[in-house]
């Protein structure tokens, strides 16, 4: 019996020790809920600690789980910063955020910031097409969104279910903006959804193209370029009929424990130096107007050289989202 | 036998407190099944009392009620005058020996034996001498450090007995303790148990389905069937005078017969069993009334082998031997008197040349007074 008792005492003591981690002085730590790649998280956390002496705790999950977690903890927030949440998520949960005017607010183009300071654009994801060069010759690769619904690409295009991914929804909204949010436009969308290989996770698209599982994929710029830069035999196309840059934002969670540290983190993560570092290492396009992106990374054009969809009405597509997704779901339930 | 005297010797000083038991109207149900049905018994201090019956008769259930492992719905059990209803099993001062020995496989012999002593907070200086004495008593000296997996069935049984007795329980309960031993060991061990009990005078309740074992070992026996007590008595009472057909059939073998009254003699009644006339003790029964009766095989004598002085007063019969079973100390015959009337007859004549052959016709007889009558 003695043995058992000492055994339990040992674990009880261990448990107490672990739960009583030294209460870091307020302002000496910050908890960041991030949807970014773990290696991005780690680099920024390290740099931030070096710069400010504030310890960063990173929690990484997909954006769906992250926002659910922030909501679940609403009454007693455990996180300080939401990092890498899409602009649409930020806006749809606008009550969860605490306004803060960052020192980098003015350096961020108006399209990528909230005038009431509740969120601030961090990175931009330009929607692109990606193809595997063994399976699709450069000359034959689709150049436009419209090319994707050509019969010859039936079962060749990978596309993530827009119900599962903010970026996939943005891609869909681009096509609807180009083709018209009407019967004719939806007919084309239906053709795309019928012909495409629908994945349930956006990351599976570039990965599958890299492995040759899919000849073509609809994805985000950084995801495609990461593979290209890593030496994969893939090509990247910026659709000639126009694309959109999807905004990933940073926010401070309302009622958080370390608001001062959170503010510093927002400032630091949007600073020019850190942004340039992220661009160089992880090919993520910054939401700042004062960085010459094209010069930094080979093969990635500056934002000004990319054809953007004219009159892309962000508020409209944000509002229209539930109905569009329901329609997509109905189509998918019908055709798959 | 040397073992027994040795046992008696070694335990001569031990004398624990022991007590009488009273069971009043105990009923135990399992769902719809009434396992024990309004059983009342009184067991005297120091008595060796056996519950005997076929499997499923409720004897083990009753024993477990006494131990406290189940709680009867009705009735009361008294140890001396003390009601046991609300006393949990570990607070009842009983020793129990189980059918499958239940020797703790993770403990050595010595540790098995001291298990109860430690639980009962025996002063530490007493533990070792008492344990060693108990181990010696059951002839396991030298095996104290052995693990149960290294012992034979008989040895395990001794460990179980030593473990139960070493705590000097007020009542010793034994649940078919010999059923897993081979025939020879069973007979040997049962006489050891009996001798031990005689010496210690611990009130003992013993459960068995083996009637021979019960007869050999008990002061008194309760025969049970369908949860009810059929008969309580000393071994010879139960054997010679079974209270009903069940007891008669369960204890020993018997010829069970049924017939019609044909006529009355001075000291007997004649009954016709399928045309064969047999004599039974005199009954005041009208002609034609149906009678059930039993005759033990050992009540018969084969007449030609019996001294004339002993054949006096026997009712004689004639029949053809249909089977012979030679058992050494006796020979079992089946004798056909008529179509469908076959009697089991034991002969204790061991002269080889007087053993009858199958097909021979023999004359044999019995004393009508030894016939048991059951009125249905």
């Amino acid at each position, binding site marked *: 019996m003695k043995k058992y008792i000492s055994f339990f005492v040992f674990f009880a003591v261990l448990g107490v020790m672990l739960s009583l*981690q030294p209460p870091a002085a307020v302002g000496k730590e910050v908890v960041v809920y991030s949807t970014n790649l773990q290696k991005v998280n780690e680099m920024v956390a390290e740099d931030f600690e070096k710069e400010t002496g504030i310890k960063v705790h990173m929690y990484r999950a997909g954006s769906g789980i992250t926002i659910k977690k922030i909501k679940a903890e609403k009454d007693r927030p455990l996180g300080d910063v939401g990092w890498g949440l899409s602009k649409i998520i930020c806006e749809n949960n606008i009550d969860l955020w605490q306004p803060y005017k960052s020192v980098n607010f003015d350096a961020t183009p108006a399209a990528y910031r909230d005038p009431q300071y509740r969120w601030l654009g961090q990175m931009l994801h330009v929607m692109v097409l990606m193809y595997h060069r063994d399976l699709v010759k450069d000359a034959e690769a689709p150049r436009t969104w419209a090319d994707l619904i050509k019969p010859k690409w039936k079962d060749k295009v990978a596309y993530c279910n827009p119900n599962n991914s903010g970026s996939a929804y943005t891609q869909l909204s681009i096509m609807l903006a180009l083709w018209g949010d009407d019967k004719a436009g939806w007919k084309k969308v239906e053709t795309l959804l019928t012909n495409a290989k629908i994945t349930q996770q956006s990351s599976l698209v570039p*990965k599958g193209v890299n492995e040759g599982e899919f000849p073509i994929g609809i994805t985000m710029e950084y995801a495609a370029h990461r593979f290209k830069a890593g030496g994969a035999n893939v090509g990247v196309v910026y659709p000639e009929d126009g694309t959109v840059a999807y905004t990933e934002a940073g926010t401070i969670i309302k009622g958080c424990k370390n608001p001062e540290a959170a503010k510093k983190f927002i400032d630091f993560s949007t600073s020019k130096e850190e942004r340039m570092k992220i661009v160089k290492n992880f090919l993520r396009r910054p939401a700042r107007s004062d960085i010459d992106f094209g010069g930094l990374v080979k093969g990635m054009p500056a934002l000004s050289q990319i054809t953007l969809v004219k009159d892309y009405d962000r508020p409209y597509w944000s509002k229209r989202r539930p109905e569009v997704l329901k329609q997509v779901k109905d189509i998918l339930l019908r055709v798959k | 036998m040397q073992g027994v005297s040795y046992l008696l010797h070694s335990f001569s000083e031990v004398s624990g407190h022991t007590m009488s038991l009273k069971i009043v109207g105990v009923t135990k149900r399992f769902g719809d099944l009434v396992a024990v049905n309004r059983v009342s018994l009184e067991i005297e201090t120091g008595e060796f009392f056996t519950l005997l019956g076929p499997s499923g008769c409720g004897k083990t259930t009753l024993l477990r009620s006494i131990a406290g492992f189940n709680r009867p719905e009705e009735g009361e059990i008294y140890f001396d005058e003390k009601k046991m209803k609300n006393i949990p099993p570990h607070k009842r*001062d009983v020793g129990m020996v189980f059918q499958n020995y239940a020797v703790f496989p993770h403990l050595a012999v010595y540790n098995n034996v001291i298990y*109860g002593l430690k639980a009962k907070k025996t002063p530490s200086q007493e533990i070792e001498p008492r344990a060693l004495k108990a181990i010696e008593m059951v002839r396991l000296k030298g095996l104290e450090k052995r693990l149960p997996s290294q012992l034979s069935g008989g040895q395990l049984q001794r460990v179980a007995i030593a473990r*139960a007795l070493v705590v000097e329980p007020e009542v010793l309960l034994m649940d078919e303790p010999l059923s897993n031993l081979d025939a020879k060991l069973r007979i040997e061990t049962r006489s050891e148990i009996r001798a031990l009990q005689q010496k210690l005078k611990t009130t003992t309740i013993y459960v068995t389905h083996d009637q021979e074992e019960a007869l050999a070992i008990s002061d008194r026996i309760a025969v049970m069937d369908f949860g009810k007590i059929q008969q309580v008595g000393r071994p010879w009472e139960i054997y010679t005078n079974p209270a009903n057909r069940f007891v008669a059939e369960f204890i020993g073998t018997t010829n069970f017969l049924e017939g019609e009254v044909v006529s009355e003699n001075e000291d007997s009644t004649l009954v016709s069993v399928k045309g064969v006339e047999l004599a039974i003790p005199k009954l005041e029964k009208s002609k034609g009334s149906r009678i059930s009766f039993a005759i033990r095989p050992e009540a018969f004598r084969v007449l030609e082998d019996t001294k004339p002085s002993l054949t006096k007063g026997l009712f004689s019969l004639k029949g053809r031997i249909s089977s012979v079973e030679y058992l050494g100390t006796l020979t079992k015959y089946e004798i056909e008197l008529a179509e469908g009337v076959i009697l089991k007859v034991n002969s204790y004549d061991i002269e080889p040349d007087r053993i009858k052959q199958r097909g021979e016709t023999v004359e044999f007889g019995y004393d009508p007074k030894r016939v048991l009558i059951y009125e249905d």
Partner: protein
Amino acid sequence: MQSPFWRLTALLIIIVFVFFLIIPIVRIMKGSFQTEEAGPFTLKNYKDFASYRSYWRSFFNSVFIGLASAITTILVGVPLAFIVSRWNVAGKALIITLSTLPLMLPSFISAFVWVILLGRQGMITHFLRSIGIPFESIYGYFGLIFVFTCQLYPYVFLMSLSAFSTIDESIEEAAKVLGSSPLRTFITVSFPLITPSILSGAMLVFMTSVENFGVPMIIGEQMPILAVQAYVQFTSEIGTHPGMAHTMGIILILITMTSLVVQRHYLAKRNFIQSARGRPLVKGLPPLKKLAASSYCYLIVFFALIPFFVAMVISFMEMRGPVIHAKFSLESYIYAFTRSARPIFNSYFLATVATLVSVLIGVPAGYILTRHQKTAYSGALDIVIMLPFVVAGTVLGIALTIAFNKGILILTGTWMILALSYTIRKMPFVARSSSSILYQLDPELEEASISLGVSPMKTFFKVTVRLMFGGILAGAILTWVTIISELSSTIVLYPPGWSTMIIEMFQGVISDDMGTASAFASILILSTIIPLLFITRYLRGEKTSIL
């Protein structure tokens, strides 16, 4: 035995489960009866589910794949168990240990690896095509069943292994004496005798494969699968139909519940209590046959471990961003140890704590289930501990987060909430495995102790627990292993600083960083083999039934 101790214990366990599982789950599950438009209660979600063909197909696909996997795992696992238990194949402990490993490798990793090998452009696919075999790819029904079989056969194998080794030899001999050939004896006697165990194993396979979303998400491609749809609905950024996630969750629960009830019903009629007196002898084989039998065993065991070996190879390759290059490199390990050493500690610590607590609660619970059958509290306990089997981890995670973020007991944001969720999810395994061990333990031993004056509670610790030790240990190890690879609730619950190896693996895979993921997978498995091997050896000879 009418000991208040056990009634109290049962009550306590039930209260713990009501408080930590049922109340949080009910709160969140209310959603399945709500929609945004309709009032507080509606069955609209269920009507929707019934009216869409795709939902129906997802339902049938899930059940079909679950059943098919159950059957294939039986075909693989039972003969293997027979060989290992009855013939003197070489290195039994090793076979048993290796066979438990697939349970440990997270299913999303094995799915990724199988795609590398058997995808449309997979290495093996190319090879097969080059030698003229028209192999298409792993995607679809075949691939799903294949991957589940490789990953889940250990459940059937381990359970039938313990059953085979407790069959009374004389029963099989009786059949042979009656003129039955060995094969006939196996089919007509041994197999039916161990069907309850096979069924329990197949049941676990069915439930696990029906609930798994990692594998179908990758290998099912567009095939509608219930678990994938539920997961996606639940974790999508903006649910278009929040109630539907819970509806699908509940339908999943109903499927698994139904299978449990069917299994119970079957077992109730077939309770083959066996005396383990005559344990089967291990038959010595002539050298050639022994070689063949051993090779067969190792072939199966190693085949199922291919994902692990490939992951190990990848972990030593150079990664440039997400792209794997065929050059040797220790980068992934250096990264794993220097930047993320904490998750290694976290995994072991959390799994150990949760396993201990699970054992502490689960063993008494198993005792009550076995020794107090037919009592009201045992029945209640039986139902209560069935629930964690069927609640998806993500759902439980969110439910716990909400329930313990305020009020008297604040656990959200501490490591304890992880330990809590692990305990709730895995304790039933410990309870079931303890219960099956207890079936083989003669109750007379406990009664002997009680009749010697030791109270039922003390008897439990001094006799019962001691005699169950081997089995408890085996159950605990398996629990420990499955906790370490628990992803779905961890991803929701882990507080800052408490990331685990499995989280790092998942992040790696999600971020296309197979290097880190593989490195962690290798560390995880290698560090677990040694204790497993040790314990399997230690337990050999002791009568145990794992699970």
